[in-house]
């Protein structure tokens, strides 16, 4: 109750409703299913070769891994994590757009791992390297689609590695550090 009265006064805010010129221009009724299917087909049939792009992001991830390994104690952990996180995010974002959903799935787990750890210690970097090696194998082997049973096994193996890490080093989980 006392906390309620100790709250800071709420900010004053002005609300503005801009004219919806877009609606006036496009009319109503949405887009037809036929047109949306045509657009979906365009995405599904795009012939972009993801490999050069994937290789470029993998190189970025490798640079991030090397930087984390070589870093001194004074290095900013957040910066080191970002060096691995951003290329990981690009792999996740673009893999699925260009017929490599398994890359997206693996990179998604990598991102979740990097978003959770507080510091890129040697064991964490080892796990990131595991992701790098696996994603590289998928791209070089041109494993398109979800990879079937093989793909699911790869995802599970890396997921398990992350869980083992969290069990072993709970103190390196960001949320546990910020807990009251």
């Amino acid at each position, binding site marked *: 109750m006392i906390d309620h009265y100790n709250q800071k006064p709420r900010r*004053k805010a*002005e609300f*503005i409703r*801009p004219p919806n010129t*877009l609606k006036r221009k*496009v009319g109503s009724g949405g887009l037809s299913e036929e047109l949306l299917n045509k657009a*979906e087909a365009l995405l599904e049939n795009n012939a972009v070769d993801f490999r050069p*792009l994937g290789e470029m992001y993998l190189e970025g991830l490798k640079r991030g891994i090397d930087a984390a390994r070589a870093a001194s104690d004074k290095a900013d952990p957040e910066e080191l994590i970002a060096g691995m996180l951003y290329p990981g995010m690009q792999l*996740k974002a673009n893999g699925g757009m260009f017929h490599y959903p398994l890359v997206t799935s693996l990179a998604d787990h990598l991102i979740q791992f990097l978003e959770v750890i507080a510091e890129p210690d040697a064991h964490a970097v080892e796990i990131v390297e595991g992701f790098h090696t696996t994603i590289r194998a998928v791209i070089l082997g041109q494993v398109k689609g979800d990879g079937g049973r093989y793909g699911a096994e790869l995802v599970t193996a890396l997921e398990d590695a992350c869980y083992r890490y969290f069990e072993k080093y709970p103190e390196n989980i960001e949320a546990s550090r910020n807990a009251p």
Partner: protein
Amino acid sequence: MSYDFHSISIEVVEDNLPMLELAKSLLLTFGVGNVITARDGEEGFRKFCESNPDIVLVDWMMKPMDGISLTRLIRTHVSSPNQYVPVILMTGFSQKRRVIQARDSGVTEFLVKPFNARDLYRRIYQIIERPRQFVRSEDFFGPDRRRTRRDDYQGPFRREGDFMNPETARFRLEERRQAQTKAEEILTNAGLKKGDKFDESLLSYGPDDIDMV
């Protein structure tokens, strides 16, 4: 009848060329009349000022200027031709804190990559049919971080400014009136007048019988 996108222009800002081409092709398939492209935030802002598009579709991670910084420029720079333009941010991030970060920079919609044609269309549809009102406060200018109020919403509004809203005022007054009636009913049943000391033993019903208003 269906949407006619012929007369609108959309700017796509994306550093990854295949992705830029793909997004452009999707928009052209939707029937968008003019698709403007840029490869980073700086070029994106320059072209935005030149062509004043109806929607901006922007990637988050770009160098030298990323999508978040571009959104801030669009919302606050004096040269910005339209501070209210809807901005759709494309990104591989989907964690809550990232969404909040994007939202706080003034982004209108968040589109997680990889996406399909219907995902992109749904964001555009939301912008057209359920546009967000804008909020200007001491430290924020951008689309209201809550979606535009639905007409069938029955509950109270929490923002200070919301009290100006007639629906909110009516709701609060009704709430107060009901509380007053309940208090009078308790006093009458207990045979008390205003200002009398309240004695629980005089009550003919227990606390469970009282509805909290």
